[in-house]
């Protein structure tokens, strides 16, 4: 079923906007804002605020309506629906089905110094009431920390015979994360070791579909919990192990 934004009444299509136009404020500014939104396809536009925030810039706060709608059922994507297990079940699965410790190496790569995300997933103390991977007796988890060059990460993963590589990317300004993530994939492929790892990336602007596009096995976004990641890792490594 096609749905539309809901403001006050079903299907009224009301949306809120704010934006700045690089122009001096004048008596007609409100109309410029209004016509601009109309150009974008909105109607019944109400300019709530239109004010000079500088002699060269005018800020708009507005409401408008759209007739466009979307059918959520037609939105299909590569969503990662993790079959979440608990801590004991995960350790049990690894022990039973893999028969050895699962080895995992993680890092925030290249210029990215944000470690809180990867720490949340890996460090002992964990996050959101879940233990981090380091605490799992059946995992051998190493968190390299921040600003790790791709080459160093791959080298370490190879040395430790890692099953899984975890990469964190937080800074996305000018799409720098795409650059770094591509660099890592290219390096791994150049070394001909792509098949050896389950490659996972996470960060606030990451999702599974995007990660797959870049060539990763999975991607995790904001508010990921260690349990989700551990469940996915264990299941995927075991699956590959059984397949081989």
């Amino acid at each position, binding site marked *: 079923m096609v749905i539309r934004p809901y403001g006050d009444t079903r299907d009224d299509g009301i949306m809120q906007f*704010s*934006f*700045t136009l690089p122009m*001096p*404020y*004048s008596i007609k500014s409100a109309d410029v804002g209004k016509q601009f939104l109309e150009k974008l396809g909105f109607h019944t536009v109400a300019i709530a*605020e*239109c*004010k*000079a*925030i*500088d*002699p*060269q*810039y005018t*800020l708009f706060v507005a409401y408008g309506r759209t007739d466009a709608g979307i059918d959520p059922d037609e939105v299909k994507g590569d969503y990662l629906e993790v079959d979440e297990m608990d801590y004991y079940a995960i350790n049990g699965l690894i022990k039973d089905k893999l028969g050895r410790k699962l080895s995992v190496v993680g890092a925030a790569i290249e*210029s*990215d*110094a944000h*470690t*809180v995300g990867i*720490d949340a997933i890996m460090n002992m103390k964990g996050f959101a009431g879940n233990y981090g991977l380091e605490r799992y007796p059946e995992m051998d988890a190493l968190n390299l*920390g*921040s*600003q790790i060059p791709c080459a160093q990460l791959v080298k370490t993963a190879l040395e430790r015979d890692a099953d899984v590589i975890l990469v964190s990317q937080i*800074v996305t*300004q*000018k799409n*720098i994360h795409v650059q770094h993530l591509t660099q890592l994939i290219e390096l791994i492929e150049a070394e001909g070791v792509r098949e050896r790892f389950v490659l996972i990336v996470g960060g*606030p602007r990451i999702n599974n579909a995007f990660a797959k596009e870049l060539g990763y096995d999975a991607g995790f976004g*904001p508010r990921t919990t260690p349990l989700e990641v551990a469940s996915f890792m264990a299941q995927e490594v075991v699956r590959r192990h059984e397949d081989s």
Partner: protein
Amino acid sequence: MNDALRLNADVVDRARAAASAIADDIQQHIERHTTDTTERATLRLLGISGVNEIDVPLVNVVAEHARELLPGGIMRPFVDLMIQTGKNAQQVAEGVAAGDLALADVPAERRAAAETRAAALAEEGVARIDAVRARRNELVAETGEAVKPYVYVIVATGNIYEDAAQAQAAARAGADVIAVIRTTAQSLLDYVPFGETTEGFGGTYATQENFRLMRKALDEVGAELGRYIRLCNYASGLCMPEIATMGALERLDMMLNDSMYGIIFRNINMRRTFVDQYLSRLINARAGIIINTGEDNYLTTADAFEKGFTVVSSDFINEAFALRANLEPWQIGLGHAFEIDPAKPDQVVYQIADAQLVRQLFPGYPLKYMPPTKYMPGDIFQGHIIDGMFNFTGIFTGQEIMLLGMLTEALHTPLLQDRYLSIKNAKYVFESCRDLAGEVTYKPGGMIEQRANDQLQKAAEQLEHVREIGLFTALEEGEFADVKRDPRGGRGFEGVFEVAADYFNPFFAALREGRMSGAPAGPAPGASIPAAEGGH
């Protein structure tokens, strides 16, 4: 509000004494070492600037070329070569870079002359800094002074021209201090980039030319508004003293300068950082620059409720190092803030306790209060409210420099309009609550007073423990921010040199001697309501 909370004065003394002993211990290490960036800063103070054909700064070329001479200090051989060639500093540097000139140990008989000349040049270098400082004093007096708390916002477009335009817009909206955020990981570069730049990631390169361009933009808008607008950039990183030099010459007014930030958050070697921060702070001190320390960062990795006291201990340590680097209290902008999870009941109550504690521990210091970041939601409306209560805490506890939170903190570096909205938020809260603190007194023995004394107690204990084990070991053991650092690891260790017995650097003395003191002072701002407001 300076005695609003009854703090245990003995514990304050214990904490300060321990911090002092900690700094004294490290100061010995500092005095026994130099670093490549220290020597490069020395060259910059001589007036050297520019890059070679592959964009390596001349000071790096010279220092690299003279690597084995660095333990003795670059000044003696360099000035000797100036004397020998009859060239000025820039020409000598260019000669060295071109391979036409070479630096070498100075024979005993030429030492005295070189040293005398070097001392004179050091005086000249410092005089340039003094002139800039004097100019600031003049400008503040002419233009007008902002009302505290200073409203401090960042620009971070990556393009210095966009930054300048946005900084001017921010000033018109009410900002008093503009900090230009550096491009991602510039602090890890072992050189300072050169020239104007228009590409950066999450920030703009700190270069001397960029400093100059921004300074010009702010002077312009300050004159327009009748309010001197302060400029801030970052010293901390691999090139602390060099950037401090640039800041001194281009009339920056504030610099992020933390004695330990590079170690903890950039994994820069600790032996290096302590040495670097010393000269950089001596320069900041001379230049009349207010330093900002970076304790807020601790609580992005550690939990604010549990580990808030580490901010307090670190403030004591930063204070001790700052005093040793000749900074006056009005220049010591200790950073603090305790970003407790907004979901915690009474979050603001605890936030007030912590902020008030630090306010009382460092009276007369222009404390910099840091905004919520870690817990900022994607819901920008809710984020705006969290920022509002933070602004409230700031005005209620008498903070002097308010780094404003942005409603989009969880998303992107601030858009033009984000900054505007945040400034309006802060201005409203400050003005509407300005006299509230003076209207109330804290309940003796209440949860606020208890929390404050408890934080203080823990800080004192931590400092005494650190004094016991030494600061190097403490950093190794992760006393701050839950981050552990290897004393011999991290970047820049290769650039640390034990000084030779005859180490010579006249700047240290020159920077200390005969300096001016006191903060600039000016009349109340010309127009407190920005002109732009007129139109709607």
